[in-house]
């Protein structure tokens, strides 16, 4: 059903599943407005000509027409309610991300975007796979920015001190601009108060040149919608820092692995049930758990690497007393390297 249209005179290309819905209501209002506008203005001009002042013509005293007045007060209400309904429907779709969304973390700062992918890698341009809901969890380190991709028809302010969210599902391979839509200042002077040079480039993918004056207008980035294969290739290219060590035939240092594990714990959603602060959620906290003696429904166990890996792949094997066996298995969703890294992370939380 999502027959996505190319760019028209008024609207950019449709690249998301949301876009056709937005454009439908856009054109509904547009044609309604055209009808209203042409009606009002032609009536006005016609009346002004027909009843123009001339000898023998006199204005008729104004009468009353209650029906007409109530009519044009009430009639718009129905249209307005319809518009509100359609608009709100679209907005709700935009506000509730599907459960199977891939989470990409967006960090905004003056004047650049950073995108952090589930594998912990990050880039300054957003790459997403096609036909996959993407949920962007965004925050800003300094002032308010706004994430805006015209072709996706999404825009959301990125406010310091709070998280904001936007999601989309790209419908076809392609690319579009990412703009900052909320004014966030600018800088035209370099060190010593010298004016920075400024000239935009003709490269449509990189219209602003690094090292020049920068600001709200140049907080530009690109969205690349890629096939699943291309995206995987991209992910690999920015991926796991441990890979470098492993490829060189060395062991990944615990620190690097633990950092990567922390990112994984986040992106894999472990942290939804396990805290790292000692507080108890659905599952035991990871703080200081490594090396501890725990009693389980299968008897006492020492929390070591083997038990952690077992618990991830087969959560119901040994359940710590006082908890319920509600954790789903991650078998098949987690690589051995990732298992090691999460284990390293839990290990690092010992103290």
């Amino acid at each position: 059903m999502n027959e996505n249209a190319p760019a028209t005179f008024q609207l950019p290309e449709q690249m998301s599943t949301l876009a056709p819905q937005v454009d439908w209501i856009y054109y509904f209002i547009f044609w309604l407005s055209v009808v209203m506008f042409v009606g009002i203005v032609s009536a006005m001009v016609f009346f002004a000509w027909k009843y123009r002042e001339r000898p023998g013509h006199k204005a008729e005293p104004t009468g009353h027409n209650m029906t007409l007045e109530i009519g044009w007060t009430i009639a718009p209400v129905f249209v307005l309610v319809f518009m509100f309904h359609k608009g709100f429907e679209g907005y709700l779709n935009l506000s509730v991300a599907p459960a199977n969304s891939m989470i990409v973390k967006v960090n905004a700062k003056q004047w650049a975007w950073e995108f952090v992918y589930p594998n912990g890698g990050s880039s300054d341009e957003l790459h997403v796979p096609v036909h996959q809901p993407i949920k962007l969890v965004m925050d800003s380190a300094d002032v308010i920015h706004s994430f805006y991709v015209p072709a996706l028809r999404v825009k959301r302010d990125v406010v310091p001190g709070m998280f904001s969210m936007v999601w989309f599902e790209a419908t076809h391979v392609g690319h579009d601009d990412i703009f900052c839509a909320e004014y966030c200042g600018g800088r035209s002077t370099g060190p010593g108060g010298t004016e920075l040079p400024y000239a935009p480039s003709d490269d449509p993918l990189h219209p602003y040149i690094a090292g020049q004056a920068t600001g709200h207008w140049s907080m530009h980035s690109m969205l690349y919608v890629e096939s699943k294969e291309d995206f995987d290739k991209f992910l690999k290219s920015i991926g796991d820092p441990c890979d470098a060590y492993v490829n060189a035939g060395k062991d990944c240092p615990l620190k690097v692995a633990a950092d990567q594990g922390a990112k994984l714990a986040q992106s894999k959603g472990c942290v939804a049930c396990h805290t790292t602060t000692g507080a108890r959620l659905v599952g035991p906290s990871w703080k200081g758990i490594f090396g501890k003696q725990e009693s389980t429904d299968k008897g006492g166990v020492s929390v070591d690497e083997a038990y952690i890996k077992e618990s991830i792949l087969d959560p119901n094997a040994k359940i710590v007393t006082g908890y319920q066996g509600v954790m789903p298995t991650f078998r098949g969703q987690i690589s051995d390297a990732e298992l090691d890294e999460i284990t390293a992370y839990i290990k690092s939380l010992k103290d």
Partner: protein
Amino acid sequence: MAAVDMPVAGGHAEDSHGDPHAPYLKAKSGIGSWLFTLDHKRIGLMYLAFVALAFLVGGVFALLVRLELFTRGRTIMDGETYNRFFTLHGAAMVFLFIIPSVPASLGNFFLPIMIGAKDVAFPRLNLLSFYVYLLGVAVLLFAIVSGAVDTGWTFYTPYSMQTGASVIAMTMGVFILGFSSILTGLNFLVTVHTMRAPGVTWTRLPLFVWGMYATALMQILATPVLAITLLLLSAERFFGVGIFDPKLGGDPVLFQHFFWFYSHPAVYIMIVPGMAVNSELIATFTRRSIFGYFAVAMSSLGLALLGFLVWGHHLFVAGMSEFATMMFSALTFLVAIPSGVKIFNWTATIYKGSVVLASPMLYAMAFIFLFTIGGLTGLFLGTLSTDVHLTDTYFVVAHFHYVMMGGTVIAFLGGLLYWWPKMTGKMHDEKKAKVGFWFTFIGFNVVFMPQFIMGSRGMPRRYYDYLPQFEIFHKVSTVGTWILAIGLFTTAYTLLEALFRGQTAPRNPWGSAGFEWMTDTPPCLANFHETPVITRGPYDYHLATPEELDTGWDKVKAQAQAKKD
């Protein structure tokens, strides 16, 4: 506050005031007669002078900003300067020009006359309001000189807490201007309540007065919130109070709530007076009463009330909760109803009227044309899912310029041409006025029509530079500003020429039945020689006597002929 009605008991100010029966411009002379005048008409004129100056300054900033956008990259200024210039354009236009424009100049001049009063209720507060305005202007100038501000006129936190220190001076200036606005509103509200001449019942109030009354309500109820917002912003910069500072646990979006609780009603403070002027113009130049007088009057009050319920529509993508977003969207659509009622009623008034296409009427029809576009494009922005795409783009820029400039400024210009003879006693050249009108009207559309398109295509606003695909729209828009400037300068020339070299205007040059035309041209110091007793409505052309409607042009022509002979 102490100044609320503090008469100098026993003071015989007769000599400081002048003869109540002499024309107000001649009742007393000398610079002191202007600086210390308590006459609402002179205060209105002084306001008009400064408001026009502010419009000129804001307009020059607009021209420079558009000129910079004529080409990609650097055209005439660097990015920081650009940011300052669009901020100053916004601040000057909003706080110095549009908000005081119609109420403080035309309103001050005509509101008391239209209700048959000798003056506003608190003439000294009125003068105080003018000087407070000047003080605000001075502080704003200081802010500009001391480094200018690059926050945009909205002062959003936390950027406004990080950027240059002149933000404090700027917010103080706006804070002071707010007081001026409050004083004007308070004065008008009390004047309408207590100063109406015998026979001026609520159902006989001219629609201009209804509009001013609704505006006054909003000025009174909204502006204090701006005051506290700006105080908090200054306190935030000095002490770091933390209410709006995310670093201290505050919430930047809360600032936006505070700001727009004032600034949304402020948008109606800007447009309702424009509508008020337009009702007068339409009635006079169709020679009949406004169709649905009651509905038009109530729609002004309706807008005033609804203006307080919809501020959240500026925050649809700002991080507001979905529930608040839904509610504000629903409330926003309600605004369409009173606005629509006005448009429909004006159009219906032209039907079966006797339409005189004088220059003010051209402005009135342009108002309907442009405001309809401004209003209808508002529907795109009130609808949530399209707003997400369109907000913070040039679509919004075009939308509010169609409302603010296509609405208020056009009505203000129409009102100026319409009332110029009454205010100055001099008639302008209609031909020049019409030339000015067409340049303004065409230029305006050339500036802002392309902005709708580039906005819906995704061009964000407040950009110093843009991508190649938007270049053509920016070029056309910039060329439009030049046409617009020609139109505005022609109109200004027309008015000034009339002032210095114009033909003496008769009492009622347009043949209006409005109350303000029933007194001398220009009015005497006391407005009327005797307290008027009103026996008909301001638009009752069928009840007005031929003498009342007599334009007096025959006499003027006869005199001119006699002189020639």
